[in-house]
């Protein structure tokens, strides 16, 4: 099904290393925030990127948007390499690659009116008359479920959910092909989350949009994604179509993650033990398989060798020594 659709974004071996706190004693120590990530996104599909804090999912999103520069690796947009482009060369690419951010309070300039916030991308790229800008801004506003008579208000006059809609309207202004959504509903109340999730899905159907949906809430990710990638300490440990990953997860971390999510059904209370240990630090990751310190199935090999990402069933790739790849 996805073979027929064009590959919009292809990421290969992406790495981002930050120097740890500067100082004489810590020279050379690096935070391996993203350490070898590869995936692709097709037209009209949503790839969910999940993981816990420190796994590097937000950093991956920023690398794709070139808000950060990768230390290593390749990013291809519609077949063209973009990881080395300078600011001017990135501009035409940015039209098609937009973003919605997590914090509905901080992602809008508090001193700009909503209309100007949404119109900014239009003004950056197109030389439209004031009337045309107004019309298109009003249309964008209505498309995301806001009233055009609120265009002249400042962000503080809107609620969190409405602010997020303004952010979405801004992302849509240039008619992009792919939107990187960095935890777009994490800061919202449950009932407002539902509104925004529905909106994003409606827009996808209407405009054939693709999303890279970065989130920590597995239930939300399952609902909105077509394929899901699970990250742990800077690496992808499993990537598979939604149906597969939620019914037949292969990586022990994915299994643990799914087990840990509290299910809103009191008749199905968990009896199993939660995954032990803490999320280790990306400054000094464990040797071999990064998950080995917490894995219930750990073997000697896991401590020494890093497992490669291998296809274990059609479309399902897992990085684990204990899973057999299909021939």
């Amino acid at each position, binding site marked *: 099904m996805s073979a027929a659709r064009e590959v919009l974004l292809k990421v290969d071996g992406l790495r981002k290393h930050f120097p740890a706190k500067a100082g004489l004693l810590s020279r050379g120590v690096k935070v391996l925030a993203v350490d070898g990530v590869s995936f692709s996104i097709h037209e009209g599909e949503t790839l969910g990127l999940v993981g*816990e804090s420190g796994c590097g999912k937000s950093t991956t999103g920023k690398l794709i948007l070139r808000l950060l520069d990768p230390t290593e690796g390749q990013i291809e947009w519609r077949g063209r390499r973009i990881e080395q482009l300078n600011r001017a060369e990135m501009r035409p690419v940015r039209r098609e690659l937009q973003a919605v951010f997590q914090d509905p309070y901080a992602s809008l300039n508090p001193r700009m009116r909503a209309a100007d916030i949404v119109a900014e991308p239009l003004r950056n790229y197109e030389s439209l008359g004031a009337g045309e800008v107004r019309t298109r801004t009003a249309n964008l506003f209505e498309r995301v479920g806001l009233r055009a008579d609120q265009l002249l208000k400042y962000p503080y006059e809107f609620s969190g959910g409405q602010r997020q809609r303004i952010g979405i309207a801004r992302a849509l202004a240039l008619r992009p092909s792919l939107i990187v959504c960095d935890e777009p509903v994490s800061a919202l109340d449950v009932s407002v989350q539902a509104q925004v999730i529905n909106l994003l899905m409606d827009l996808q159907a209407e405009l054939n949009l693709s999303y890279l949906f970065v989130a920590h809430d597995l239930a939300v990710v399952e609902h909105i994604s077509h394929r899901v990638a699970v990250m742990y300490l800077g690496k992808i440990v499993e990537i598979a179509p939604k149906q597969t990953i939620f019914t037949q997860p292969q990586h022990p971390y994915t299994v643990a993650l799914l087990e840990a999510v509290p299910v*809103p059904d009191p008749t199905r*209370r968990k009896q199993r033990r939660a995954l032990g240990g803490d999320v280790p630090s990306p400054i000094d990751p464990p040797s071999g398989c990064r998950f080995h310190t917490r894995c219930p199935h750990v073997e000697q090999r896991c401590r020494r060798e890093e497992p490669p990402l291998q296809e274990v069933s059609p479309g399902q790739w897992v990085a684990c020594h204990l899973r057999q790849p299909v021939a």
Partner: protein
Amino acid sequence: MTALLHVQDLKTRFFMRDGVIRAVDGVSFSMAAGETLAIVGESGCGKSVTSLSILRLIASPPGRIVGGRILFEGRDLLTLTEDEMRAIRGDAISMIFQEPMTSLNPALTIGWQIAESLVLHRGLSKADAMTKAVEMLHKVRMPEPVRRARQYPHELSGGMRQRVMIAMALACSPRLLLADEPTTALDVTIQAQILELMRELASETGAAIILITHDLGVVAEMAQRVVVMYAGRKVEEAPVEQLFAHPRHPYTSGLLGSMPHLGHSLQDRSVKRLVEIPGMVPSLREEHPGCLFAPRCPNAIARCVQEVPPLAAHGAGHSAACWNPMV
């Protein structure tokens, strides 16, 4: 069974420059010894203010408890002096908060922070208290408790800090534990550990727990009974299985429907839309006649905007405040 806690018609208001906020507007519920009650609702519904009111931790000004009674083991907490309340806090009733970093003193070792309440409430010597503190750390499954007791909060991870908070709260064997969003700030695998710990400790110590959360999954995992709050009022109360199987109040039903849960979208091929509760929470500053949820309610009838519905019984221990409840 005599009630451990009996909250009667609690009213807490905040007197601000631009209006009075009716944060808690006539809330009543009871708890028996050893049971776990969840108070669930979205931001601004008054659940946190309710628990702060029980311990009389409302900052005054601008807040004030203006009405009602809080009977704890037969005594009305609202009539006690500040000294008498102080004797209760940390001893008979303790509280754990959402953000462990800001609730822990960064300048004191965690061992001492646990020991402090033992010195204050039990009159133990410093040495004895520190020994007991290490015991508590062991009880909350902190690895290497002796070493950790000498560490400072910033040296611990989020999950560990929350364990310290739990240790502090349980040091004096309280009869009632107020837990305000204790796992919201934690990663999901760590959340699972903490919830498991709380369940085990509750049954070991026999403490009653009021668990405040917005996450219905956590409610299903932990609670025996649930109180649903909306805009400062209680809208439904039920045993947990009843609430999830047969919610009577349209808000509860809407909340349950608007949450994506794992496995939900895998059933059939068609993309499911989440139930949306249209509109926003009403302002708590203004007076609204009738039911506060009416403007957003799919079941609203004429009577709803005129008269506030009383709590009506819908089965054993199950009540809902609605003129036109779900069937």
